């Protein structure tokens, strides 16, 4: 059996938030170098989340910016790993599927992580939108008409579902930036978008009766419809989900995520 190369021990982390340190350590243990600036940015992200009171509601946050599959697969909250499948390009700052075989299996399910019909949020950071005109999913899970997802339905419409009736919340030509779909009650859905220019509401809906969320693994770069469905070639810099966030909390989260991603990658959000 081949021995793995010796990886440098994790930075001592004096003064780092313990959750930030745990994530940094997990990334470094894959042999990935995390710069001092990146450590500071990661630490700031965790601390801001706790100050703003949205961190405790986060369940999965992936930051696939490292150019390698192993660190890209690590969840910032639990430090467990999902699984990349097929042809995926791991670039500095984002991952990109091939729109055929490439996707990321989070390895967990929204109901298992506590999301309910009246409390849940999905998000994705889209650096570059899918290049084709047909349907493509950024993140999601589907069991027949029970859908929780963010997808493009066409090249001019971004769409979210948090529904047991395939009800769509259509956001129009808004396929890039940080997209969030949040439910904080069974009677409301809020679809928001953050760009470098600021944050806006792109759609709302009235929701529906209480239901149990789809219980299949959540995929990113595609959706799980009891099998791979709608793989995308969009360039994604982050994705994940949380319990429901109000508009103000969602905006605070996406602002912190924007800062984290831009600082760690030196790229700019669209």
């Amino acid at each position, binding site marked *: *059996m*081949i021995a*793995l*190369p010796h*990886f440098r021990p994790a930075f001592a982390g004096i003064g780092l938030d313990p959750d930030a340190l745990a994530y940094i350590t997990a990334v470094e243990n*894959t*042999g*990935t*170098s995390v710069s001092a600036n990146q450590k500071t940015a990661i630490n700031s992200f965790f601390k801001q989340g706790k100050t703003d009171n949205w961190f405790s509601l986060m369940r999965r946050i992936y930051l696939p910016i490292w*150019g*390698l*599959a*192993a*660190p*890209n*697969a690590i969840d910032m909250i639990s430090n*467990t*790993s*999902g*699984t*990349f*499948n*097929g*042809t*995926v*390009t*791991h670039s500095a700052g984002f991952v990109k599927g*091939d*729109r*055929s*075989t490439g996707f990321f299996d989070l390895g967990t399910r929204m109901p298992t992580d506590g999301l309910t019909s009246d409390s849940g949020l999905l998000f994705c950071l889209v650096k570059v939108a899918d290049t084709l005109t047909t349907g493509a999913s950024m993140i999601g899970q589907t069991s027949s008409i029970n859908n929780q997802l963010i997808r493009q339905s066409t090249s001019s419409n971004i769409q979210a579902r948090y529904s047991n009736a395939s009800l769509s919340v259509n956001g129009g030509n808004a396929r890039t930036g940080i997209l969030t779909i949040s439910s904080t009650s069974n009677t409301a859905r809020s679809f928001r978008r953050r760009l470098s220019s600021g944050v806006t509401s792109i759609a709302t809906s009235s929701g529906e009766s209480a239901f149990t969320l789809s219980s299949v693994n959540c995929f990113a770069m595609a959706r799980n*419809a009891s*099998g*791979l*469905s*709608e793989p995308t070639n969009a360039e994604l810099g982050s994705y994940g989900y949380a319990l429901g966030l109000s508009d103000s909390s969602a905006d605070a989260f996406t602002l912190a995520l924007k800062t984290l991603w831009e600082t760690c990658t030196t790229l700019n959000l669209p």
Partner: protein
Amino acid sequence: MIGFITSPAQAQAANDAVAQAQTDRGLPVFWLPGAYPIFSGEHVGKSFVPCDDAVLNTPLLGSPIMTPQDFPEFSQIITSLGGLNSRVDILHTDIINPDQ
């Protein structure tokens, strides 16, 4: 898309072997080539395991960077699938489930 055409069981076995190569090293299963049912074309009913240059050269972990080809188990898995020369090129539409 370039890769192997094989039975569903053999495709799963290949992916299981890739998974084991990771867990045997104390790693989580963070990467798999995948196993995709074929729904149309001449290979309908079988499974597709991607194995193009992008898959072979996926940057996995480490410094220097290790790819699937840097793992000894890789050659065994490729042999079990028929060897690199047995790969075929199929249409991406062949693995699209018409019921979704």
